[in-house]
């Protein structure tokens, strides 16, 4: 029983220390957190996805008859605009 216990504790200690055992000296110890520029880009990507998803949902609702033609015409314009703006503000080469 004691032997099992000691073996387990030893294993735990090794595992917890592993990152430091593998790389005693680290060239880059940063957590790879997104920089502010990255965060802004992520926000733009989210906006693009939101706009595209909203457009897709509107099309689907229109096709299934939930949104009638009049409402569709009224709503689709602004949504297409938003999507276009979002796509444009991301790096053009992305397209």
């Amino acid at each position, binding site marked *: *029983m004691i032997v*099992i*216990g000691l073996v*387990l*504790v030893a*294993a*735990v200690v090794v*595992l*917890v*220390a*592993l*990152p*430091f055992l593998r*790389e005693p000296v*680290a060239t*880059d*110890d*940063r*957590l*790879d*957190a*997104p920089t502010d520029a*990255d*965060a802004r*880009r*992520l*926000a733009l*990507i*989210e906006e693009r*996805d*939101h706009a595209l*998803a*909203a457009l897709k*949902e509107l099309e*689907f*609702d229109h*096709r*299934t*008859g*939930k*949104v*009638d033609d009049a*409402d569709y015409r009224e*709503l689709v314009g602004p949504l297409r605009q938003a999507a276009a703006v979002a796509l444009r503000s991301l790096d053009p080469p992305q397209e």
Partner: protein
Amino acid sequence: MADLGRAALVVTFGLAVYSLVVGGIAARRNERRLAASARNALYCSFASTLVAAAVLATALVRHDFSFRYVAAHTNRHLPTAYALSAFWGGQEGSLLLWLLVLTGYGALAVAINRRLLRDLTAWVVPVIGGIATFFSFVLVAVASPFDTQTAPFDGAGLTPSLQNPYMVAHPPMLYLGYVGLSVPFAFAAGALLSGRTDERWIVATRRWTLAAWTFLGIGQLLGAHWAYVEVGWGGYYAWDPVENAALMPWLAATAFLHSVMVQERKGMLKVWNMVLVALAFELSVFGTFLTRSGVVNSIHSFAKSSIGPWFLAFVVISSVFSLALIMWRLPLLKAKTKLESALSREAAFLYNNLLLVALCLTILWGVLFPIVTQLVKGETRTIGRPYYDFFLRTFGLPLLLLMGIGPLVAWRKSSLRGLTRMLAWPIAAAAVTGIVLVVVGAGSSRPGLIAYTFSAFVLTTIAVELVRGTRATGSLFTLVARNRRRYGGYVVHASVVLLAIGIAGSSAYSSSVERRLALGQSMTVAGYTLTNRGVTVDRKPNVTETRAHLDVTGPWRGSLSSGDNQYVNPPEPSREVGIHTDWLRGEDLYVIVDESHAKTGVVFVQVLVKPLINLIWVAGIVFLFGSMVALWPDAREQRRLVARLAPVVP
């Protein structure tokens, strides 16, 4: 062997503290290796908790009565399955289960998300570590399952009414639910701590939340069904504090599940979502506190236990922490878009939030009332059933209606003209249903009638949605497969409607008659005639079964028996009721014999007829199916997610 268990828990405690402290430092200082080390500590804490759990499970199966816990909850006669289920039958064991599921879920959630969401996961580790620190501390220092004694020859055994498959499954289901809510909570806290309050944490934890919510729902239905067939008072929910302890977090989680959709589409209700997930988590821990501490009178909880003050302290500290965190990051939680119309999908979700939270807080007030009155007036006052029934109707019926209207309202703004067009069929169906019901006599109960017409309304809206969608995409299967979340959700809504119909039918339209019947005497209830055919006493090795037998005529011909069992080991009685389920007529004939005299054949019997009660159990199956559809992994969605997040991670 108990030493190994104790040591394993101490190791878990150490690792939990490490992941809390070191994980927090690593996240703050942005250090990769330190964060990885804290993560590994979390994984190891699951392993050591697993060792402790294995020790307890082995002791239970082996009937090792040197473990005080094993002696208190099992005996030699107990079949292995029930001996194992005693793991969660007592306080210490159920806390160990909590910790096991917590470390397991935590390790898994962190492992899955560690590459895509590095900065977020770095903060999730210390939050889970903090929760694990609390539970492992209680297990090590306050309520250990590994206390030993000189082994008695035999243990105390398990109460017979708990030796039942439903009672075996009920606690683990609830735990998978309760503890499951800590994952979205930890990710939400991680988002606030890392300052990344975009919706990544919501997308990452969506399935966790849905799964936890499903487990919590199914767990409650299992408990209700057990109460109905085994405890035998004719009901399935008594608004007991311990029952409410599971309902409250479920309601908060329901609100959260819906409200996040608004944040995902419109970037709104961000503060709501943070508050809701914290509320759900705190209520699940608070529920554990209520159940275990003996602070409120309940049929389930009893002696004041030593863990009470610790749990209360944890709930207070973690609530203050959550609130402070939200207030600190309030500027980051500003909405991207505004609410433009009171008649919009966003507004519908907001009303949904308000009604669910109102119901949840109403129940909380009812549960806390005895404690509050004791503190304020020095006199304990208890709130009874009528209070809960009133508010269930006041908030529940509008919620039912909203379930039908919400999916049909457009985002941003809905025109009244458009809405009435969409609702034409459902309103017609509801009106027709209402008229038909009044004609057949269901007008006797106004809330019942309202519940039925609202249910017809909602079911029609779901049917119309399915028909429209199938017409547009060509096949029902393709429709559902491409929109799992939406249509899985509709199936779940349908299950809630079935639940509402079952509850309305069995409470508003039930009949109950109590009689003393001599041998050969009859009584009539709702068309059934029951005749007393006498009492039998059957002595078996471990139990003496006393039964009164009644012949039934009327819509059904047959016989039912009911009475008491007196067990030998452990020496406990249990009531056994007789139930006949008529699927065609959709009602239960429920017989409770509470006193019978074998010599004279005289019995005292209560007969109930409960219409549509079985829809409640059917609703559970439909609920499970709908959740599974919504949970089903979607390869396309997964690819889109990775494509979205990948560019940001070098």
